[in-house]
């Protein structure tokens, strides 16, 4: 068993995912199964003979510095869950707050 309940709690917190106590064990089991499966790779001897792989172009293109935003067919008020006076609105940050 590579992943315990504590580790699930830690990772879920990093990912900001609510995980109920009831499902912790099942998740730990499933994640262990997946992580043990992918950990097979660690048995493959290190071999860096192949050049590093880069999907797509070898280098990024650059955009000219021109003001040309992709227009929004509908404003943010149409898709935001809470939008007041031009602002996206969330609960106070609580423990994350800086002031």
């Amino acid at each position, binding site marked *: 068993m590579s992943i315990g309940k504590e580790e699930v709690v830690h990772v879920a917190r990093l990912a900001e995912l609510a995980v109920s106590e009831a499902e912790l064990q099942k998740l730990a089991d499933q994640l262990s199964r997946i992580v043990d499966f992918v950990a097979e790779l660690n048995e493959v001897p290190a071999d860096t003979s192949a050049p590093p792989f880069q999907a797509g172009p070898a280098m990024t293109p*650059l*955009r000219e510095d021109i003001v040309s935003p992709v*227009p*929004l067919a509908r404003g943010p008020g149409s898709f935001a869950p809470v939008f007041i006076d031009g602002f*996206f609105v*969330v609960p106070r940050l609580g423990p994350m707050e800086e002031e």
Partner: protein
Amino acid sequence: MTWEIVVGLEVHVQLATRSKMFCGCAVTFGAPPNTHICPVCLGLPGALPVPNAQAVKLGTQAALALGSTIHEHSVFARKNYFYPDLPKGYQISQFDKPLATGGAVQIDSPERGPMNVSITRLHLEEDAGKSLHDRIPGKTAVDLNRAGAPLAEIVSGHDMRSPGEARAYLTALKQILQFAGISECSMEKGSLRVDANISIRRHGDPKLGVKTEVKNMNSFANVSRALEAEYERQAGLLESGGKVQQVTLLFNAATGTVKPMRSKEESHDYRYFPDPDLPPLVLAGSWIDEQRRSLPELPSALRVRLQAEYAVSEYHAHQLTLDRAVADYFEAVVREGTEPARAVGWVLGDAMTGFSEGRGFPVAPVRLAGLAGLVQDGVVSQQAAKRVYAEMETNGESPGAIAARLGLLQVGDTGTLGQWVDEVLAANPGEVARYKGGEARLIGFFVGQVMKKSGGKADPKKVQPVLLEKLQT
């Protein structure tokens, strides 16, 4: 101080581009909330980033101005964390392969004299939006106009040993970046932001102490204050047998204190990895050389040139280069025919007062040169010229016309001067008698009285001969 303070600074500067780092939205300041947003900087599903060429260019020039090594191959990485004004849940930054490393900034330490502060790295990244806690009661309001604005983060070595050195570094850094046209560097507008890393140790101890990070300083003066406050806090902890914890603190400018952020339940684990939406940033060596060649003159070089070319003093050269605009104005005034020494006087004197107050240089160089010429030719006195200058800041009339309208043209004709001299001599018979009795130094008193009588209009150089002549008789 029993303890030595060790300071490193992380400075974020907003690069002076038209559009954002990864999208075509305008970079603005003070626009109505959420009016400069698009799928990319809103982090809408399906949107993708494309880097801004000008941001790359300015970042490269900034690094070159700091003497850093530009890496031909650098990599954008995702820095993962959740915050309401971070739209994608990650910030596109650079991590293990930054744009540039190395370099140094020369500073004048108040304690140690001229020294170098090393630059560890410079990397490109995008800004977050703004969270406003005072707009809607009990809620946080998020404005994403700033989200995606291009930033360079400049990380210094832990080379500073006093708040004064930190301030000197910031001043020098800002100066270089402004000179090179990289950034407006306005702390007020948030285009320059500073985070400080601080630890303390006993003098002579080779080992660094546990460092803390202080944020939320909105001026260079407050950076010094915050460093002092954090020094006191850490010293207090250690002296009372406590330990310094690795925390992030916020500076409160109103109270001058630092306070740990409320929540630090877990250390940050940003899970950096190369951004798969962005292939490596590859810059040709020839392009980097071209940027190096096209760098504008930097403050240190300009200081040397001002001293050589205009024979200004080292002190004045320093004052003239505190802001690129000052040096430019000075040189323009000289080009209009003013003697450099006079130009220094005007630019660092009356003109500087307005500039320091944020009014810029409203008097065109040619007009200031005209005024300086009037003084040189004795048309107006230095004293009167200051009044003329004050008018010129808001009035487009020629300096001569202003001086005439205000009645400040110097009077040099012997008839008028003779009349003023007669009146002064008549009003001060005692002094005349003492002068004639051998108290020659009283000549200065008579000149002063004539100047006073003339309301400053008499040409002092011409008053004395008339006085001497009349006193002979």
